[in-house]
């Protein structure tokens, strides 16, 4: 049975993806019999190409994806290079991981409220410093360059990349490398950049690619923070799919295929950049410079990460204030009155969505967990190297959601599978499983094989060794991976809406539906509720191992 696990896992991810893509490629070339399209042609592509603002949309998606990734990665790398494991560094690190729990949309709302001309920052300094009695007429949120969108994305991707780096670092023997380089006269920061980073990067490459793919095709954040004249490509595609004029479906499908191309182009660009850096960094690595820029890097690394963290925390703080606010006239720094009305209005209606969110999240995490652990266990038992087919697991993260989910609905309907809870769980699995694999595989492979060998040499069979040795030893990383998965499941909007036919309301579909109504106070309540479940998940992932291993000193740290 075990040897089938990788195949079950890969087909559970690739088959729906392929079916969805097929159902979107056909209409892109004119074939959609239900609307009378029965021949293949390029009309949709011509219409798409002539669409006002298309070129700018493409450029926005492409550039914002690359820049976001580059900046987020730099922030993480600079921090790690500066990181001396001091109390300050550890507290910064600890603050960052819960940020992963906060859904993209919630961060976007919070950020928009901070930086808008009528936002918290301006309110705090007005009219005292600025003399503004009315908000200044400047374009910050939704700026045409996509800067606020990139800032919002960065706030979310920094914690993700940091967590991935921290998961990969222990296997590199960082301390020894640093000690060796320092004994040769390198400052710690430069030593880290020259001896650890080159080995670290290959290990976090896939997460970086996932970030690029996500950032080039994100929908929810772009709706809130992104430019509007024109919007990013993914937002345009969504609006074409939702256009009352049904003939737009052809163009929407072509757009979805184009989005896939844009994402691939961004990935290719990044890959070329990697090749260049690999070729030309050699000189820098061995040029012997031991100190240059060390202080700047050390300071900026800490500053950048701290700023990121503080921004997210203030954004959440802003949401809390707004969820309790009565009317709040500009430029008052705080609302004139506070009220619990908004919470009282929302709470009674979110019980079912919360239960749905929880059951979909737990079920998809459980299934993904079993499949991923079985796949990894199979690989470890048979000493399989990290295979190329691993790339297949990440396809759902790299293919933009808008490019295949609409097609997947048609595919499911064709198989007479009706929208229901089980279908939503399967759809979530597409995104939950890759993230679970991403967050667990390093720890799983890294676990000292001698633990299980000792068990075998004591006459204990593979299954008992699995349950009694490997799983307990991996409890902490396993729970963290599950918390990541749960957070991923909770934040899914399109898969829940489309595959559930809207019948499975979750806290996220409620939040997005409510967002369309624009009552910021109610949005704040829902965004906070949306952040609550993943936050509980991450807290449990942190607390359970501490509680279970309260009397086992070694297990308190990382195994």
């Amino acid at each position, binding site marked *: 049975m075990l040897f089938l696990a990788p195949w079950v896992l890969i087909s559970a991810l690739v088959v729906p993806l392929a079916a969805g893509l097929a159902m979107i490629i056909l209409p892109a070339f004119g074939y959609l019999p239900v609307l009378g399209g029965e021949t293949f042609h390029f009309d949709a592509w011509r219409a798409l190409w002539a669409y006002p603002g298309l070129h700018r949309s493409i450029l926005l998606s492409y550039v914002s994806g690359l820049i976001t990734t580059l900046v987020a990665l730099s922030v993480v790398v600079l921090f790690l290079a500066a990181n001396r494991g001091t109390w300050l560094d550890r507290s910064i690190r600890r603050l960052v991981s819960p940020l992963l729990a906060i859904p993209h949309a919630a961060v976007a709302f919070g950020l928009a409220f901070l930086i808008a001309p009528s936002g918290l920052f301006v309110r705090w300094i007005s009219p005292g410093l600025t003399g503004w009695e009315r908000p200044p007429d400047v374009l910050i949120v939704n700026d045409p360059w996509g800067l606020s969108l990139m800032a919002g994305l960065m706030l979310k991707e920094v914690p993700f990349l940091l967590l991935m780096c921290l998961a990969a670092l222990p296997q590199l023997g960082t301390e020894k490398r640093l000690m060796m380089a320092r004994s040769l006269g390198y400052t710690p920061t430069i030593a880290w950049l020259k001896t650890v980073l080159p080995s670290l990067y290959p290990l976090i490459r896939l997460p970086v690619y996932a970030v690029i793919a996500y950032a080039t095709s994100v929908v929810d954040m772009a709706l809130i923070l992104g430019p509007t004249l024109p919007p990013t490509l993914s937002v345009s595609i969504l609006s074409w799919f939702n256009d009352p004029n049904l003939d737009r479906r052809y163009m929407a499908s072509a757009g979805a295929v184009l989005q896939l191309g844009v994402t691939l182009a961004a990935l290719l660009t990044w890959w070329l950049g990697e090749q260049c850096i690999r070729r030309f960094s050699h000189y820098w690595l061995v040029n012997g410079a031991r100190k240059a820029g060390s202080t700047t890097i050390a300071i900026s690394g800490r500053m950048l990460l701290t700023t990121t963290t503080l921004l997210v925390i203030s954004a959440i703080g802003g949401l809390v204030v707004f969820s309790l606010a009565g009317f709040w006239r500009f430029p008052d720094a705080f609302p004139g009155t506070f009220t619990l009305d908004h919470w009282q209005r929302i709470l009674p209606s979110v019980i079912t969505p919360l239960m749905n969110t929880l059951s979909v999240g737990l079920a998809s995490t459980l299934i993904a967990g079993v499949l991923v652990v079985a796949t990894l266990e199979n690989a470890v038992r048979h000493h399989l190297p990290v295979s190329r087919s691993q790339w297949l697991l990440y396809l759902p993260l790299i293919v933009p959601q808008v490019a295949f989910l609409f097609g997947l609905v048609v595919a499911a309907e064709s198989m007479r599978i009706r929208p229901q809870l089980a279908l939503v769980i399967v759809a979530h699995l597409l995104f939950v499983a890759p993230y679970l694999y991403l967050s667990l595989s390093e720890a799983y492979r890294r676990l000292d094989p001698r633990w299980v060998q000792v*068990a075998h040499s004591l*006459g204990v*069979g593979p299954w008992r060794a699995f349950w009694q040795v490997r799983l307990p030893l991996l409890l902490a990383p396993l729970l963290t991976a599950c918390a990541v998965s749960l957070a991923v499941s909770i934040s899914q909007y399109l898969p829940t809406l489309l595959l559930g036919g809207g019948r499975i309301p979750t806290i996220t579909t409620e939040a997005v539906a409510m967002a369309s109504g624009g009552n910021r106070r109610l949005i704040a309540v829902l965004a906070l509720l949306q952040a609550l479940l993943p936050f509980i998940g991450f807290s449990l992932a942190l607390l359970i191992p501490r509680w279970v291993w309260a009397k086992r*000193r070694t297990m308190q740290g990382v*195994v």
Partner: protein
Amino acid sequence: MNANPRLHIKQLTISLESEMLLAIDRVIPPGDVLTVMGPSGSGKSTLLAYLAGFLSPAFTALGQLYLDEQRLDTLPAEKRGIGLLFQDPLLFPHLSVGGNLRFGLPRQSNDKHRQISHALEQVGLAGFEKRDPATLSGGQKARVALMRLLLSKPQAVLLDEPFSKLDTALRQETRSLVFGQLREAGLPTLLVTHDRADADAAGGPVIELG
């Protein structure tokens, strides 16, 4: 001690990508220690992995392994009845000292509790059942690891440089404890080491690899 079996490594050759690493053909009688010596890379660990049943499929092994008449090399690791002591004591950090010993006991053992406390007594650790392994000293850990091995009732034992991480004074003491216990149990033992003193203490024949 005629009841105890002997370990027979029969015409074994191990190679990696058609390059031969080692060849060995030996019988280890009950209670005897065969010492294998050699520098790093000479194939010591590969030999151990083969005997214990953990050899990576990248290697090709020809030959057989017998415990008396029973063929072992076709069995999975946990069915071979070959116990293993590593360089590190590898006490499971998630189990108590008692839990580690209990983990080694065969499922159907009678009166596990008494067996465990007796084993701890034997190595001067009476009453340590509830202790967290992390609170033990290096020598104490080594002793618990040894007793865990013996409680699992192995038919043969492999030692992978088990004393190399102990300081000199402790090494002497642990050596005599380990070899004493193994001899008393009458188990055929294979010791892998690069320390001549280990070989001398073991007192058996020595093979040099590499």
